[in-house]
């Protein structure tokens, strides 16, 4: 099914939310809709003319309060392929401290009536504040240590593309769980879709009560990786050593690093994923990152299609509200 055909179906407006703030808000049907739509969008990216008019006349603001290369460019390409008018605003946090509050920035933007705002911010919950002030649809492109919903959607897309399903898969997520927004979005999404999610890291980097999200917690990477269908590594930030979360990068790699030896514990067709940017030799050995099981670059490629799908579906919802 192509994008042009999809435009005539009513299923397109099935996202029940105006904003995309958290994957916890999404039902299995909504997640499936996004992933199905992303398949059609991926086909657009394979054409010689990679552009459809779906968001023509719509304005999308990319409001980035944190430096980001891959997420921002991914959104920007997605918006351009959908023919949206895009505007990038990068605001260094330091200048915000001096001047305008987030609420005032939001009101200023709102006065220019964008249809959607994609926000990346270092404070957990910042997109919620924006959603209470703005009439635009808000897309959370990463807020503090809270969530990064489009990353989880593109991860799910990448998994489904290979495994043809999410339900019943053993997914091991290993690394700095405490500070990871990718973790939280993935846990909500994968458990909603019926995957068996294991999380693994040193106790200092495991969020309190994380098992209440329906995941298995282990501090043994061997246990996490054993018979896994998917192994997802999370970035270890170098400054965490100063917070005494672990003694050294060398020791971290020895205890929790994803090595070829550990890879053999997983299923023969295991997928190795990483949201990037990677620390080679810390959370993942280069042989694994560059090896045959790695889908890390597929994740990046799929990011564009999934973000096109999200933008497209949220714009459809917004148009319906205007009509009503």
């Amino acid at each position, binding site marked *: 099914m192509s994008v042009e055909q999809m435009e005539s179906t009513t299923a397109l407006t099935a996202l029940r939310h105006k904003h995309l703030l958290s994957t916890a808000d999404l039902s299995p049907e909504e997640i499936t809709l996004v992933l199905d739509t992303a398949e059609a969008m991926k086909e657009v990216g394979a054409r010689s003319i990679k552009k459809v008019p779906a968001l023509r006349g719509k304005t999308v603001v990319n409001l980035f309060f944190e430096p980001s290369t891959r997420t921002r460019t991914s959104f920007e390409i997605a918006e351009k392929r959908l023919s949206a008018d895009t505007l990038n605003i990068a605001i260094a946090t330091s200048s915000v401290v001096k001047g305008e*509050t*987030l*609420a005032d920035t939001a009101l200023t933007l709102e006065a220019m009536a964008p249809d959607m705002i994609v926000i990346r*911010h270092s*404070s957990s919950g910042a997109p919620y504040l924006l959603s209470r002030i703005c009439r635009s649809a808000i897309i959370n492109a990463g807020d503090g240590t*809270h*969530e990064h919903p489009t990353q989880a959607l593109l991860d799910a897309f990448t998994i489904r593309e290979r495994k043809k399903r999410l339900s019943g898969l053993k997914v091991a997520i290993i690394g700095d769980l405490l500070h990871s927004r990718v973790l939280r979005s993935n846990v909500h999404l994968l458990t909603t879709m019926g995957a068996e999610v294991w999380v693994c890291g040193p106790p200092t980097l495991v969020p309190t009560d994380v098992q209440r999200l329906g995941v298995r917690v282990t501090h043994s990477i061997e246990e996490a990786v054993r018979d896994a269908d998917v192994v997802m590594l999370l970035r270890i930030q170098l400054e965490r050593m100063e917070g005494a979360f672990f003694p050294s990068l060398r020791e971290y790699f020895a205890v929790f690093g994803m090595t070829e030896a550990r890879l053999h514990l997983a299923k023969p067709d295991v997928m190795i994923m990483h949201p990037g940017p990677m620390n080679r030799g810390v959370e993942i050995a280069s042989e694994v990152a560059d090896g045959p099981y790695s889908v890390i670059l597929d994740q990046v490629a799929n990011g564009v299609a999934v973000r096109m799908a999200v933008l497209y579906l949220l714009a459809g919802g917004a148009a319906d509200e205007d009509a009503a």
Partner: protein
Amino acid sequence: MKTLLKGGRVVDPANRIDGVCDVLIDGDRIARVGRDLSVDGATVIEIPQDLVVCPGFIDMHVHLREPGQEHKETVATGTAAAVAGGFTAVACMPNTTPVNDSANVTSLILSKAAAANLARVYPIGAVSKGSKGELLADIAELKSAGCVAITDDGHPVATAMLLRRAMEYAGMFDMPVIEHCEDPSLKADGVAHEGYQASTLGLRGIPGAAEALGVERGILLSELTGSGFHVAHMSARQSIRAVRKGKEAGVKVTCEVAPHHFTLTDDLLAAPIPYDTNAKMNPPLREAADRDAMLAGIADGTVDVIATDHAPHHYDEKKVEFDRAPFGIIGLETAIPLALDRLVHAGLIRLPRLVELMSVNPAHILRVPGGSLAVGSPADVTILAPDLKVRIDAQKMRSRSKNTPFDGWELRGGVAATIVGGRILYAEESFGSFGTFGSFVGS
């Protein structure tokens, strides 16, 4: 001038009174309490029997923000909020700008209080100069200027040694040391209770142990020095356990709990408004087991005082990202409805115990007048309407700030009237204008 409060249920646990009585006020003093008093020349106010006449409620933990943060609150607006909330007196914390570490600041606060002429104000001085945790403030000077206790509230006293010295020194004047209990390294840059909600929302956590460590430290030092130690705004179940053990061991430790800590949990961080900055306070809203431990401590006597930690912040200051917002909510105008609804009507405690928690005990701990309707006491009276249906409306509050998570809440029980020094300074709408107290308000 004599006023006779005729009828109504008088609850005065300090004098073992709980029954329908009359209270005679002569000028600014209580003149008599008894059945069927008839007094020539007294103005008679007929009190309906479903109202409860109590010694004035005292909130021993309030931030009046003056001097220096008058955009949040002033002594005048704060004491207006106090009388509207049923409090006849408040003790105000020293973390103003400048800090109340000198007679100058104390005198300024007291002169503002005298000008406002509403609730009584008892300033609390700083433990250390500038609350910086280095040198002791001039505690004798603070005492003679009118301070009733010392604290570095907002933060714990910086070191165990300084806290020890403060206890020893203030003990000489029989002044309690009030402590914001918290281990700074364990609290770190936390913004919410360390638990499921903070984990899910990606908020940096503050474990209950951070508070309990401070409580344990203070109890040990109170035992060492023999001086009184009062735990401010307790929130963690481990802290309740520590105080209970300390009391069993005979240590002179007392503690307070704020209404939000016996009512709310950290679930408020997620719903109904995700990342609501009015769910952000320090100590943070904790989980159900902690909230239930506060209720148990209130019921079994471990908790001595209900105090609000009234912490006004301007609308602009709270309308920011969660981790950038200041800690604290206002509490003066919601405390009594919450206490009646959640403690008394819930069957946890009876009214005499509530009066102990909100009047008798704070007066005793701070060694201030009040907490009793004995003859000769100040005529400070809180009249409760336990069955009044109250709908909390932040916009109608007297406080200059409106930062409350209870806006729109419907609660059973409220304040009928507040009398300070014999003057009726507040009457709730249905008892005002054309009601019981209508023509007497402000007299």
